[in-house]
């Protein structure tokens, strides 16, 4: 009988559903405890620190449960956008400063300067605060995100300081199946330090794109030369690849940010960091800097606000910011934490501070999304040799103008 073919499966399904633990998706909220939800964009290492902070917070505040849900940058923004515009979503989101651009414009965040207690923002180092349309939208718990040169100490004693030195060292190191240098050349964020080093920038004070400039052409030409002419870099040098090479000891130097450093150490690399070398024009590379922090969902009810404010205050306290800060290699945003001896005396973070000081603040206006997006094709075109720097710069500017216009329509 044919129908028998199905019965083992039905039986198996039934059996499995009995064996697996019972269905209880909703956590029992003992004694009417309040649950707060945080959606966060953090790398696995940093999530560990947040878990510990939240554990401490929950022991300090019995009756409050905090759930942290990890997302990557894009998913966080997209999902939050859907959830918050549908009238719900988490109380808090944590992510890089530029996400406040679109989200505040969509009126999905509360302006924090009006909802947090007076004077709340005085506690932060000024470089960590970004104002947009006259309001602060995020409470930062760290500053940085600045790209630096990372080098393998087993291969070289110190990082090159000038363009000539860099080339010499990179060429020396390119041998035995190893590259002198690897970098994520497909992402505009990695072009930014070179663009700024040559004196250019992605936009002017009115948030108008400034991509078709001599500085942009020089920066593109410099990177293209490094990648395609000098024979010191792998051919398809994206993030994963550069990362893998450096972790395997198959690249002597890489340009990457604080989020990557603990991973390199864990992979057994004797890691050194240094500010980006002086470009051929004599100016040091100038990375973008940004803070990361907590923003409050516009849908949070007034009755919930005290608990949410208290949580944000705790998560941006010196106590929370200093936990594992040296191991993670992140710079705190709270003035007291910044001045703390563990930060100031850590040799690694000291160098990181130099890199941070050499940087320039990343804009948070929504136009930046478009600008990143239109820079990518141009940058990749120059890197794979299909476009000249001049063509690429022209193309970037033209499509930036067009996309910004259609975004604003």
């Amino acid at each position: 009988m044919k129908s028998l073919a199905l019965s083992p499966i039905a039986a198996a399904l039934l059996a499995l559903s009995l064996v697996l633990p019972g269905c209880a998706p909703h956590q029992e909220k003992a004694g009417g405890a309040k649950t707060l939800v945080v959606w966060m964009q953090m790398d696995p290492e940093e999530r560990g620190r947040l878990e510990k902070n939240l554990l401490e917070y929950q022991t300090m505040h019995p009756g409050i449960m905090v759930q942290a849900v990890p997302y990557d940058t894009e998913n966080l923004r997209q999902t939050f956008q859907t959830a918050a515009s549908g009238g719900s979503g988490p109380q808090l989101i944590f992510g890089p400063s530029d996400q406040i651009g679109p989200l505040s414009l969509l009126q999905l965040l509360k302006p924090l300067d009006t909802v947090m207690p007076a004077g709340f923002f005085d506690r932060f180092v000024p470089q960590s605060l970004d104002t947009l349309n006259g309001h602060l939208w995020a409470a930062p718990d760290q500053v940085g995100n600045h790209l630096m040169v990372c080098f393998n100490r087993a291969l070289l004693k110190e990082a090159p300081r000038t363009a000539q030195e860099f080339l010499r060292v990179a060429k020396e190191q390119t041998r035995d199946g190893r590259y002198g240098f690897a970098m994520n050349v497909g992402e505009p964020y990695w072009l930014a330090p070179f663009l700024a080093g040559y004196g250019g920038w992605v936009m002017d004070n009115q948030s108008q794109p400034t991509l078709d400039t001599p500085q942009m052409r020089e920066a593109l030409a410099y990177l293209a030369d490094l990648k395609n002419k000098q024979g010191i870099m792998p051919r398809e040098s994206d993030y994963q690849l550069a990362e893998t090479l450096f972790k395997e000891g198959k690249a002597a130097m890489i340009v990457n940010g604080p989020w990557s450093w603990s991973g390199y150490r864990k992979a057994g690399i004797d890691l050194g960091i240094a500010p980006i070398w002086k470009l051929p024009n004599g100016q040091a590379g100038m990375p973008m800097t940004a803070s990361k922090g907590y923003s409050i969902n516009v849908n949070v009810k007034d009755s919930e606000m005290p608990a949410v404010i208290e949580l944000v205050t705790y998560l941006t306290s010196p106590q929370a910011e200093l936990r594992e800060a040296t191991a993670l290699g992140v710079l705190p945003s709270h003035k007291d934490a910044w001045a703390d001896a563990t930060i100031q005396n850590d040799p690694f973070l000291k160098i990181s501070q130099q890199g941070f000081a050499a940087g320039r603040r990343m804009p948070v206006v929504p136009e930046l999304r478009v600008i990143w997006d239109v820079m990518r094709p141009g940058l990749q075109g120059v890197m794979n040799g299909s476009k000249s720097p001049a063509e690429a710069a022209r193309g970037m500017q033209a499509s930036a103008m067009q996309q910004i216009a259609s975004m604003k329509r």
Partner: protein
Amino acid sequence: MLRASARFPYLLLAPALVVMLAVVLFPLLYNFYLAFRNMSLYHFRDHSFVGLEQFRLILAEPTFYQLLGKSLIWTSVNVIGHVAFGVLLAMLLSGPVLGKSVFRTLLILPWAMPQYISALTWRGMFNYEYGAVNLMLKQWFHLPAVPWLSDPFWAFCAPIITNIWLGFPFMMVVALGGLTAIPKELYEAAELDGAGSWQKFWNITVPGLAPTLVPAILLGTIWTFNNMLVVWLVSNGGLPADNTHILVTYIYKVAFTYSRYSYAAALSVVVFVVLLGFVMYVLRHTGRAQEASQ
């Protein structure tokens, strides 16, 4: 035909229809509504009626025609690939083959894999220096490596190859089922008449398979045209340089990167109309053919 009370078929159909209409109808209507408004980053809470403006914009931009062309290429190459490999393998497997069920089981596996896992795996395999595809080309065939993910042409080929891999098992299974329905006597009679294999294929196999394959191709075409995941994941969101977008990945990008909701909704309506037109055409065409053959 069966006879029953007039209510009976409606009762059978109702539960499924209720689910479909509940989950699909509202989003659909909402989209049509959005398509005539100007909901975007700057008009998110205060959007207003703009008539056919979004459609005018879409049709005025050359991007749309390029994307439509790419979508058509994407769909046709994929569906042809699915059918060609599917039918070929099905024919081979319905002949005398040692370990037939082993082959059939292994060949079906791509269908069993969740698409997001396959797509990411293939993306890794297409890496220039470390991907298995180029390593094989170099180490086994001494061919130059192909810039799968950085050259616009190859970067469009990469998701196509991935999707052909994903989709041929379905067509193979459909064709295997269809082949069993063709009476062996037809082939035997044709052999007596001295027909070659090619003639047998065109005169017996193809018409014999058509009734089972046409609906599968129809459905496959719709699925492929609307398949966003494979292109998006293999090309990492349209890289390099937004060169790999097809219509549906572009909709995703416009909606979620630029928050141009109404534009994206209007573009979705256009896709819907294109597919609807295609399906109506096929149905009318094959319907007539079937009537003629009856």
